[in-house]
């Protein structure tokens, strides 16, 4: 169950959010709006909307920044005073949001409210989920204190494991249930994105900041109550969603089929691609090469050792080779055998004191620097150490020259 909620569900939410979001953007671009009800009801909206939007924006920034820069966050929170100030600020902003969302819900509640008339079932779901999200967030801040610190070692590694396509929920599965609920409902919000007016996040009219201001002039006194006859006027302005049976039935069916097909393709395709992309990071291990005294000073010899994590069927390919030279009784140097040009194996020419590549004639001096030919940089060295009289080498990835 936790595998579903913490591994499968986030991906489903993201895929749907991006896929349906893009679909909606390209097919119903004009629905990318907040469907503002400001013209219908403005008194409560001001208090609700302003508190909500300022609060939630800052709270979101406080969630995203430590996720992006965990090390910085750790350094900042290392100081107890800074931690207290930050937690208190966060709690205050959270309460600010709670106030805002309560006002926003309340203004849509009364039966005779004009805002209620334009509220769709999806809006109610969105409002409830958002309310749950901020309430549970405030709850976490109150009852599981110092969340800004443990966030870094629980949710952050989990979120990054999702990004890396190596989902690992082990850091969050042990958390109290209501914290887990906060995490999951966060992805519910992401899931709701393309299906609700939440898409307006991507349609913020920032150009309002620098465009010339407009003056709105009412041709009636806006403070006067509107007579019942003119109530109908705004209903014409209301962007009422078309009922399904008004839609062209064929177009609907085509779109449903495309959606169903895309979801099926994603279900099959995404795990396959993730499996293909997923590469297990091999740990680096020290491998013994032999007694230090068995190597003559000044002589480069070929040594071979096992990869850090050979597979049972690797056979001879599990081995790696390197050129090892004893510089002094205590000092060893190991070069990768791969030419930095295109990876061919270089040979040691003892009489000339040079490494030579058979592919394109690259030549390296005994210290690994380029003598001539196409190689762009010196031979790569592997870390070597002497321990209890034994030479050991650190297994390393195949050196790939990149620009």
């Amino acid at each position, binding site marked *: 169950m936790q595998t579903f909620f913490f591994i499968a569900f986030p991906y489903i939410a993201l895929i749907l959010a991006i896929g349906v979001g893009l679909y909606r953007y390209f097919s119903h671009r004009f629905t990318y709006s907040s469907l503002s009800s400001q013209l219908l009801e403005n008194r409560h909206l001001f208090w609700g909307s302003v508190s909500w939007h300022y609060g939630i924006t800052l709270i979101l920034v406080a969630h995203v920044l430590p996720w992006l820069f965990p090390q910085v966050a750790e350094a900042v929170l290392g100081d107890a005073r800074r931690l207290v100030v930050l937690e208190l600020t966060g709690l205050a902003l959270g309460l600010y949001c709670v106030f805002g969302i309560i006002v926003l819900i309340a203004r849509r509640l009364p039966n005779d409210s004009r805002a209620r008339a334009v509220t769709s079932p999806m809006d109610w779901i969105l409002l409830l989920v958002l309310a749950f999200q901020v309430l549970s967030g405030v709850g976490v801040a109150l009852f599981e204190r110092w969340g800004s610190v443990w966030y870094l070692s629980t949710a952050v590694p989990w979120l990054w494991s999702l990004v890396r396509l190596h989902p690992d929920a082990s850091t969050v599965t042990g958390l109290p249930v209501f914290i887990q609920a906060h995490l999951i409902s966060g992805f519910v919000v992401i899931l709701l994105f393309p299906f609700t007016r939440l898409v307006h996040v991507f349609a913020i009219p920032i150009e309002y900041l620098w465009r010339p201001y407009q003056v709105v002039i009412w041709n009636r006194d806006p403070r006067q109550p509107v007579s019942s006859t003119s109530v109908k006027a705004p209903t014409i302005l209301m962007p009422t969603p078309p009922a399904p049976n008004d839609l062209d039935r064929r177009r609907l069916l085509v779109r449903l089929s495309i959606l169903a097909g895309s979801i099926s393709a994603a279900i099959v395709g995404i795990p396959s691609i993730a499996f293909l992309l997923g590469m297990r990071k091999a740990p680096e291990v020290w491998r013994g090469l032999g007694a230090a005294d068995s190597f003559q000073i000044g002589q480069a010899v070929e040594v071979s050792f096992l*990869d850090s994590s050979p597979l049972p069927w690797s056979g*001879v390919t599990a*081995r*790696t080779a390197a050129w090892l030279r004893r510089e002094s009784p205590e000092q060893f140097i190991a070069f990768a055998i791969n030419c930095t*040009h295109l990876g061919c194996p270089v040979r040691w020419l003892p009489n000339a004191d040079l490494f030579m590549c058979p592919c394109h004639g690259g030549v390296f001096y005994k210290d690994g620097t380029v003598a001539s030919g196409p190689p762009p940089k010196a031979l790569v060295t592997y870390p070597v150490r002497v321990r209890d009289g034994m030479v050991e080498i650190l297994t390393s*990835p*195949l050196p790939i*020259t990149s620009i």
Partner: protein
Amino acid sequence: MRVLKQIWRWFDDLTGFSQSLGPIMAHPVPQARKTRWFYVFGSATLIAFLVQVVTGIALSSAYVTGSGQAYDSLRFITSSPVGRIIRGIHYFGASAMIILIGLHTIRVYLMGAYKYPRQMNWLTGAGLLLFTLLMAFTGQLLRWDQMGFWTAVVAAEQAGRAPLIGNWLGHFLLAGNTVGGATLSRFFAAHVFFLPALMFLFIAVHLYLVIFNGISEPPKAGRPVDPRTYRRWYHSLLEREGIPFWPQAAWRDVFFGAVVVLAIFVLALVVGPPELGKPPDPTIISASPRPDWYFMWYFALLSLIPKWSERWVIILGPLVFGLFLILVPLLGSRGERSPLRRPWSILIILSVVFVIAHYWVTTVRL
């Protein structure tokens, strides 16, 4: 004989093949006159591909996809006389396919057959050319002797030159930090499933387009393509002097294809498959990796060009080539088709052939 005929009638009654496919087989095509033998390279490429499919399936029935065992399984295949021939056919089939798709591309380019309405024919063909080169590269790797092993390393190093993602891409190709157990399986999947699936798809579209747009008529200097009138003119040409594709035009394809298959078989019998080198042991340093002949010129080019230009050649070279293939039909979709009125096309082909031949000859001397 009569029984066979009855069976065919029964089968045809149920499938309707002679009604649905018959007209397609016999659809009229323009007479190619003097250039009629230039039209066989495309179908011969297809025949070489089918040779590869059949022998490839046979080989895969004994090949072991494991970095540790592939080499031994190939020794086992080669030790049986028939296995040896199959490997030879697969090798020379690959060589034939490379040569034929090259000739086909040159023929289509010189004759301007990619112009309206056949731009999509060209683009799908460009995809097939790319896939064929990738198949050649991965196939050489699957031989998994010392050369195959170092081919994987060189592939990763070349991919490593890509900006930003180079290092990741290189290790993605190797499926890990070093060449190991996972590497061969990855290239096997690409060579046996992924690329062939794409090729079948592209071939299907390519053939469909050949039927839909019709085979291009031989170009004539002073008869430019005008998209507004071309289709109508082409149909009137077919009505005037078209000949049925099967068998009046297609017999040449069959004949030439048979010659190709025979040549592949004789070479496989007489010359045999490329010898397996030393085992794919990374610790045998006395290796001098060389690609198969079709990439030898590129291998030589990388050692002989000036050092400063190399990073550009490795990354931009293939990009420019790909871009050229894409832009050819998009920018030159109308106008003269005859090479006599398109001197640049002759110059481009000559210089490409000259560069490849030059570097290829250098390696033979090396």
